[in-house]
């Protein structure tokens, strides 16, 4: 009787302790990555290889989604703005919404599901097949050899991908607004240039994407490293990476926006 009553509370306590435990381990893990990243940056080839897998291979999805997001913004923005007779402001609307919010956030969400999940699966499978233990036996530090290059590759790739996403989005908005609907090209650009500020919009957007890059990649490599070394453990770690990344990106976005704008 007592056991059945107490078990939900026990479960709750276990979950809480586990979450706090993992948070502490993740923090120590970040410290270890930063400590050993000197070695991995000395052998730059490893990081470059990971930039290829994390960044270059994500180019297609970023370019295509950026283009479509920009085109949708163009269509929706034109429909709403023309109701108020200010369709001229379409350029400013597209550029500001992309630079401030949509570019960094959507690029980070795509990056988390495209590259973050791959990182988790790769590291988790290395752990499950005891490759990480084998490295340790050979006196190779797996954090320096496997984790740190992936972490830095993600941190480097994310701002590049977000900037590219923004450019493609602006281009998509231009395609819809100027080429398809037939707004004046000069007005489109000049409205954009009059309302976009280098520091408060472009630089802040890049800072956002850098923060998202750090968060997403840390979650991805941590979940991989922390995964239960079984087939189902790796699969649930991959799922956790995508879910946690998405939540962390959106929460961080709110915090950063509150600070920046």
């Amino acid at each position, binding site marked *: 009787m007592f056991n059945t009553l107490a078990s939900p509370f026990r479960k709750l306590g276990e979950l809480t302790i586990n979450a706090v435990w993992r948070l502490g381990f993740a923090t120590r893990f970040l410290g270890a990555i930063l400590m050993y990243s000197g070695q991995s940056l000395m052998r730059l080839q490893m990081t470059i290889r990971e930039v290829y897998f994390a960044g270059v291979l994500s180019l297609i999805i970023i370019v295509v989604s950026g283009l479509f997001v920009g085109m949708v913004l163009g269509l929706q923005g034109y429909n709403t703005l023309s109701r108020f007779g200010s369709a001229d402001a379409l350029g400013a609307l597209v550029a500001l919404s992309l630079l401030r919010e949509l570019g960094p956030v959507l690029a980070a969400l795509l990056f988390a599901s495209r590259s973050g999940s791959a990182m988790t699966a790769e590291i988790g499978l290395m752990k499950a097949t005891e490759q990480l233990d084998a490295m340790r036996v050979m006196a190779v530090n797996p954090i320096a050899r496997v984790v740190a290059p992936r972490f830095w590759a993600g941190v480097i790739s994310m701002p590049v991908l977000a900037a590219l996403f923004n*450019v493609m989005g602006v281009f998509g908005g231009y395609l819809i607004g100027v080429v398809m609907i037939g707004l004046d090209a000069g007005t489109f650009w000049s409205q954009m240039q009059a309302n976009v500020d280098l520091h408060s919009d472009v630089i802040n957007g890049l800072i956002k994407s850098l923060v998202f890059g750090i968060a997403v990649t840390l979650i991805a490599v941590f979940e991989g490293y922390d995964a239960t070394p079984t087939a189902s453990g790796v699969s649930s770690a991959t799922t956790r990476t995508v879910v946690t990344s998405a939540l962390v990106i959106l929460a961080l976005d709110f915090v950063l926006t509150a600070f920046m704008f």
Partner: protein
Amino acid sequence: MKRSTIDLWVGIFVAIGIASVIFLSLKVANLTPQSNEQTYALTADFDNIGGLKVKAPVKSAGVLVGRVSNIQLDAKTYQAKVTLAINKQYQFSKDASAEILTAGILGEQYVGLTEGGDPDTLQPGDKISLTSSAMVLEQLIGKFMTNFAEKGSNDSSSGHADKTAPQQ
């Protein structure tokens, strides 16, 4: 160390990133090398600035000549003290006037400068004394409604106004 095709791809990737940032700063944000040294400050006191904001444009004859750099309430006169950062290349005479205008009906508000006839020019830190405040839509409608009501009551009082009007 051997060069591999991966290096080439990563090189292209980084180049795309740099090109994107340059495009965003130059074409989208219209970055022009304009530092604070190239502007000078003028102040103007307004009774009411309406919805004027810091960084709003300052225009003369429709041409952008500067930006609003600061807005404060003068604690003694209870007027709005607006500081304008004007480009060094533009000089205005001592009796230039400033007014707060609106771009379109619902557009943003900006400061319009009109050149006067005085040969002396305004020096950095000077105050523009001739100002006119923002048009506040509610006050305008209020005035219109009062006029309208007065006119209506005059008409209804059996043409009293019509008789007096020609005599004036």
